[in-house]
């Protein structure tokens, strides 16, 4: 490990771009994407796309902050949204305060205000939660989450009860003179803060605290022998995660201009958990992928089907069983094979598994959609259609083909899976023999 870093440091300028190219790529992508959805006829940006992109950026930061606990410190939290929500409430009150008092606090700093809110909340709740680890930690965070959600409905002054706190981001205190009336202006502010926050979180993984969090995750007894107090490590890590979750909450408040108890609730926490795990808690960029996927499904798929949460759940379960490293782990598994230059040998096995896989997925989706249509959508007077086809949802043939495709596809996938695994294991064995993988 040490020889690798020193040799990498010795390399010259071009390798800097190569090593950190992903950051520049992400930044460029975020800057360009709004213009992909630019409506030239009306001469403005698509509002839906901008909101979607903003949501993706802020959920990425939220998921990254979640990963500071789950991936880095091995702490499973079920109440992470509390930090997010309190950050959002802080910003809502600050904006209202600016409007009322005329104090010139720049709008650009609002995510930082949210971060401070999250930090304060992290100091308070983390003190209790980080006394324990593992399952007990998970339970305490769940308890705190439920507690604050219920409290939010009860105390009007700070949380605004069921209606939440509404605010207005157009307070004219910008340092750059930007009014923030249009969503695209807010989007670029969010991109800037997302980059800063992501970079800081990445740097945090390199600090002694970040390293010791890893150590206490992997072997918390030995951490104590080395002379560190795991409780202190957990506490600091929790506070910092709170800070970044608060920043995400601040962005949320700027985008939607309303903060309700939903931002604190268990569903929000579950979203962070799902995003982080599906993306992959093992690497730094995993949660970003997961957040983009989850938000995409939430906003994109939910337009077409009310069962999107079911699909997300199935993807999640499949990940837990077959790919505990998440999407990022799946990619990473291919690296040793790619290094041998034998990735091409996997094309045929992949193609062979793709056909039955598609069949199974389509059958499953058709089945689920038919069922939801019968119980929920039909009552709302909606017409049944899937991918442009509109079969009669009452017909026997549709149901039969769905079930046959689903079960037949599953059996076929199992059969092809054995072939795939045989090939895969042979390749990995080969990589081991050559010393590419340990």
């Amino acid at each position, binding site marked *: 490990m040490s020889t690798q870093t020193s040799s990498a440091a010795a390399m010259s300028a071009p390798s800097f771009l190569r090593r950190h190219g992903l950051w520049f790529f992400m930044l460029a992508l975020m800057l360009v994407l709004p213009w992909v959805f630019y409506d030239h006829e009306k001469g403005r940006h698509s509002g839906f796309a901008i909101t979607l992109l903003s949501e993706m950026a802020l959920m990425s930061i939220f998921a990254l902050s979640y990963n500071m606990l789950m991936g880095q410190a091995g702490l499973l939290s079920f109440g992470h949204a509390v930090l997010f929500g309190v950050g959002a409430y802080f910003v809502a009150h600050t904006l209202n305060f600016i409007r009322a008092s005329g104090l010139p606090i720049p709008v650009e700093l609002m995510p930082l205000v949210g971060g401070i809110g999250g930090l304060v909340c992290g100091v308070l709740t983390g003190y209790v939660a980080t006394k*324990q680890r593992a399952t*007990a930690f998970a339970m305490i965070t769940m308890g705190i989450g439920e507690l604050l959600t219920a409290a939010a409905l009860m105390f009007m002054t700070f949380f605004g009860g069921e209606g939440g706190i509404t605010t207005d981001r157009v307070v004219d205190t910008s340092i750059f003179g930007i009014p923030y009336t249009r969503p695209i202006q807010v989007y670029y502010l969010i991109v800037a803060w997302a980059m800063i926050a992501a970079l800081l979180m990445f740097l945090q993984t390199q600090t002694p605290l970040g390293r010791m969090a890893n150590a206490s995750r992997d072997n918390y007894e030995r951490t104590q022998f080395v002379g560190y107090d795991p409780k202190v490590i957990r506490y600091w890590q929790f506070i910092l995660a709170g800070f970044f979750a608060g920043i995400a909450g601040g962005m949320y408040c700027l985008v939607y201009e309303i903060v309700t108890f939903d931002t604190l609730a268990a569903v929000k926490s579950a979203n962070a958990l799902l995003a982080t795990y599906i993306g992959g808690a093992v690497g730094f960029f995993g949660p970003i992928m997961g957040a983009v996927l989850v938000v995409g499904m939430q906003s994109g798929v939910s337009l077409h089907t009310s069962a999107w949460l079911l699909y997300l759940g199935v993807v*999640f379960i499949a990940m837990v069983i077959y790919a505990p490293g998440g999407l990022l782990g799946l990619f990473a598994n291919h690296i040793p094979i790619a290094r041998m230059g034998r990735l091409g040998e996997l094309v045929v096995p992949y193609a062979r598994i793709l056909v039955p896989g598609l069949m199974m997925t389509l059958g499953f989706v058709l089945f689920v959609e038919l069922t939801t249509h019968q119980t929920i959508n039909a009552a709302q007077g909606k017409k049944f259609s899937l991918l442009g086809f509109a079969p009669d949802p009452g017909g026997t043939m549709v149901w039969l083909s769905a079930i046959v495709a689903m079960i037949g596809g599953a059996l076929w996938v199992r059969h092809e899976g054995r072939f795939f695994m045989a090939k895969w294991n042979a390749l990995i064995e080969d990589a081991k023999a050559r010393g590419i993988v340990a």
Partner: protein
Amino acid sequence: MEVFVVSLLNGLVYGMLLFMLASGLTLIFSMMGVLNFAHASAYMVGAYFAYTLSLYVGFWVALIVAPILCGLLGAAIEMWGLRRVHKNGHIAELLFTFGLALIIEKVVQMTWGLIAVPYRIPSGLDFPLFDLWGTQFPAYRAFMLLISALMFLSIWLGLTRTRIGLVIQAALTHPDMAGALGHNVPRVFTMVFAAGTALAGLAGVIGGNYRVTEPGMAFSMGPIVFVVVVFGGLGSLTGCFIASILMGLIQTFAVVLDYSLADLLEVFGFVVTKATPGSEFLMVTLPRIAALLPFILLVLILVLRPRGLLGTRDT
């Protein structure tokens, strides 16, 4: 006095219902070290099964069949799901049950719809058993008490007096040693998981028509059951029983005692008005925070006494 006795009875009914859910979870939790998030889902599924079955074959058959179906479901989950993720560690197992709970809720919504189903108390039990100062006590609540008391007795006898019960107890604390002695520990695990799920299903059958049968019932019940399990302590059925009854009583009494901190201060001569600092906090009445009490208790227990009331080891 009237309020006290009625609340006591209601609290007892609710507590026994909680115990039916929590007893299975305690056994599963202490055996596998995994908090089963899908446990309350079995409660919900039990209620829905019972609703559908009672439409065709009547309540009494459903009372037997629905828990058995739930038990089979539990066995399938353990054998094909949990056992497979076991090698990936506790967090993976926890997340597996969490994902399962999500999926089950959606599947229930898909199958039975988004709104509550009309799952009613059987007409044979739909009469007031006795009057207490003008308040009627329904026979169905007595029936619930009877079922749960029978269940408690049979679990207790089964665990302490039968051979298989002794093997389970051994597998709870020393799984490796029990395995070395020739007992099929994985099968014991599956059995306990199935039995625990069946109990949760039974709780659903008799609780679903007492409360409401709707897709949100698992997520509203789940956290409370966790609190009971943690409060009672790992590996202790007696602790679980005490915690369930206590929780049932706390929640029932909190609802009827309409007092706030401001009322308490008034006894000592401080009058709290809207102008007093923190008045919003002080004037919250007990019924309003009744739903919060279990979670306050959960956090306190985990921080101050992680092994719970009668637990043998830390959570």
